Each structure stands twice: as C-alpha cells, then as structure tokens.
C-alpha cells in the first residue's frame, strides 16, 4: 500500500493526530512511521488526490497541527512513498540533514509577504511624471502614431514599472529584514511585485506583524501588502 507523506518530525514530537483527517475522498487515518532517529507522518495514499480545496486543506491542516505542537519539516503537497520501508530508508539516509533542518526551524515560524500594485494607478503616475511617456502616449492614442512610437512608449513604461517595483520590493524587504532569521525571495511575478517568505523567531512574531502593518501604512496609494502567518516553515524546509 503506497503512503502519502506529510512531514518529518523527531520522535519527541507529541504527534497528536487522532482527530485529523488525511487527504482523499475517504481519508485513511494518519499514522507515524518510525525510523531510527526520525519519524514521518503518513496516511494511505488515496487514488483521487487532487489540487482542490479538500486535499490542500487536509495537507495544510496536518502541517499546522504538527507545527503548533512541535517542530516538523513539511513536505510539499503530493508526495507518495511506495511503502513503509521506502519511508524508513529516506528517514535513514537523510537523518543528519533533516535533523539539522529541524534544529534550525525550532521555535521559528514563516511569514509570507506579498505586494500587489494597482496597475492603472501606477501607469497613471508614470504618465504624469515622465514628459517623454506623456508625449508618446498623446501621440499614439486612438490608434494614431507609428509602431515604433508605441514600442518606445511601452518600453519606457515597462522600464519604469520594473524599476518602481524593484524599489518598492527592496524597501519592503529592507524594512523587515532586521526582524527575521532567514528569507526566501521569489522573483517578482506578473501578479506580485514582491513575494517574500521570512523565517522569524516565534517570540518576534508580534513585532514582525506590527512592523508589516506599519510598513503597509507607509506605502504609496494603490499598493497593497498582504501578510500571511505565522505559518509552518514551508519555504525553509
């Protein structure tokens, strides 16, 4: 029977799992596979695993429970081992590495910070502040102007958008950095100009939340900062 694997913990973890549901339509009970020095939390792998709410929630609920009661290494969603022996082999082979990670994550939590900027508001600002952009924009409105002018306009605007996003992202990360133990930054995407995860000492959680709130208040109009956490340390496992 193949096993869905949730997380790796030390045997000293309370591993209170009885009222939790695993993944799948009719989830099997969560149980623990014991290796020599580490354990893995598993359930029987369902045939119908999907990335819809049911299974994602079940996976995260297990991570949050484990994390709230001890230290664990959360696996990414969707990993299945052939059987208990395969799980034990992994625990054995990776024992040193996993133990080190667990030690480093003890008493720390993850916060994820995402920044979204209203694009129209940003473009409006750029048009207002750059004479050349304004000129080209006037020249190319309502289908007027040449392809080269449109291209130049778009290129200037793209550069402005990028440099403004980079500056904002740098400001945000710099403001939070003093409070964090480690950081994991995603490259800016079309959706978020900043997407950063921070590993924060549990005792600094409140200070971090407060700092993020203050930072959100200082940001320009049209910029939204979204804070999620404290979370299990997905980004630092």
């Amino acid at each position, binding site marked *: 029977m193949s096993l869905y694997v949730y997380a790796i913990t030390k045997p000293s973890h309370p591993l209170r799992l009885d009222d939790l549901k695993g993944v799948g339509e009719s989830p099997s009970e969560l149980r623990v596979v014991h290796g020599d020095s580490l354990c893995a939390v598993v359930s029987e792998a369902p045939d119908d695993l999907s990335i819809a709410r049911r299974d994602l929630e079940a996976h995260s609920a297990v991570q949050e429970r484990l994390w709230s009661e001890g230290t664990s290494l959360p696996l990414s969603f969707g990993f299945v081992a052939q059987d208990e022996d395969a799980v034990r082999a992994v625990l054995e082979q990776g024992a040193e590495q996993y133990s080190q990670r667990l030690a480093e994550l003890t008493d720390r939590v993850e916060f994820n910070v995402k920044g979204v900027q209203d*694009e129209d508001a940003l473009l*409006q600002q750029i048009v207002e502040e750059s004479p050349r952009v304004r000129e*080209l924009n006037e020249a190319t409105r309502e289908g007027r102007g040449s392809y080269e002018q449109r291209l130049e*306009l778009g290129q200037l605007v793209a550069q402005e958008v990028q440099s403004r996003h980079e500056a904002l992202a740098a400001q945000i990360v710099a403001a939070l950095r003093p409070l964090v133990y480690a950081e994991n930054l995603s490259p800016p995407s079309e959706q978020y100009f900043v997407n950063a*995860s921070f590993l924060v000492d549990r005792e600094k959680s409140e200070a971090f939340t407060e700092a993020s709130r203050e930072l959100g208040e200082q940001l320009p109009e049209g910029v939204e*900062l979204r804070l999620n956490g404290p979370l299990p340390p*997905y*980004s630092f496992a």
Partner: protein
Amino acid sequence: MTITPGGGAVPAPTQGSGNLYDVLELVLDRGLVIDAFVRVSLVGIEIAKVDARVVVASVDTYLRFAEACNRLDLEAGRKAPAQLPDVMERVTEGGAKGKSKGALSGAVEAFTESLQKGRHDEIESGERPRRGKEERREREPVERGSERRSSREREE
C-alpha cells in the same frame, strides 16, 4: 505619501487554512521535496503555480503597456484626489485575486473559485473563460526562471 489604502489591507495574521489562496504556492511548491518519493501527477498543478511567472521584457509586453497607457483616462487622472476613493475601493476589492493581469490569471480565478466553492474537481485548463489579451500573452515563449516553466511551455 500620506494616503494609505495599503495599510487597511494588511490582514490580521491568518489562522488555519482560511486564506488558502495566498499560501497556495507555499503548500504546492515550497515544502520539502524528497526525490526518492513519487510526486503524484496532478492536473492543474502548473497552472496553480502561475505566481512563478516572471514578467518578461518582450515586444508583446511593451505593446501591452503602450495599449494600457493609451486607455488611461488622463482627464480623470489629473483630478487625482477625487479619484482616490475609487482606487482604494478597487484595491480592496482586488482582495485575494489581486490586480493580476497575468497571462494565466483566468486560470487562477477559476482555481480560486473552485477553492472557494470547495469543489473537489480538478482544474481543467480548458474550463476557464479566456480573454483575447491573455491568450496572446500566454504564447510568450520567453521566460526567466526556466525551471518553473509549465509543461505547456516546454512543448514549444
């Protein structure tokens, strides 16, 4: 800047999985990966990782920005203070979906919707409504962070 729509938008720290959408990529993409285990093949997992799409510098991007600038209502913009409540409202409304204009935002919306409804179906890329702009942008072949390219892009 003294106007602070962003401030009110910082949510209280989330508890449980109430805000699953915002931590989706963490759960899908950030946890420990163990090579000796098999990752179950999941329909839609690449779509769900849409956040990984990096903004690319390409002619297509430039033309889209030019078009977006052309569309701005400049008269309204010059009366900026009167427009602020509108901006704030839109930012707030953006909520979980943000102001994404990304190539696959339609898919993410469909995905979010499925999460919100608690449906158990897998996400089929074909079931989402598509807008012309998105279709065009989806064909952009250039992408940094190539390790995160979707299977669709790899085929190109």
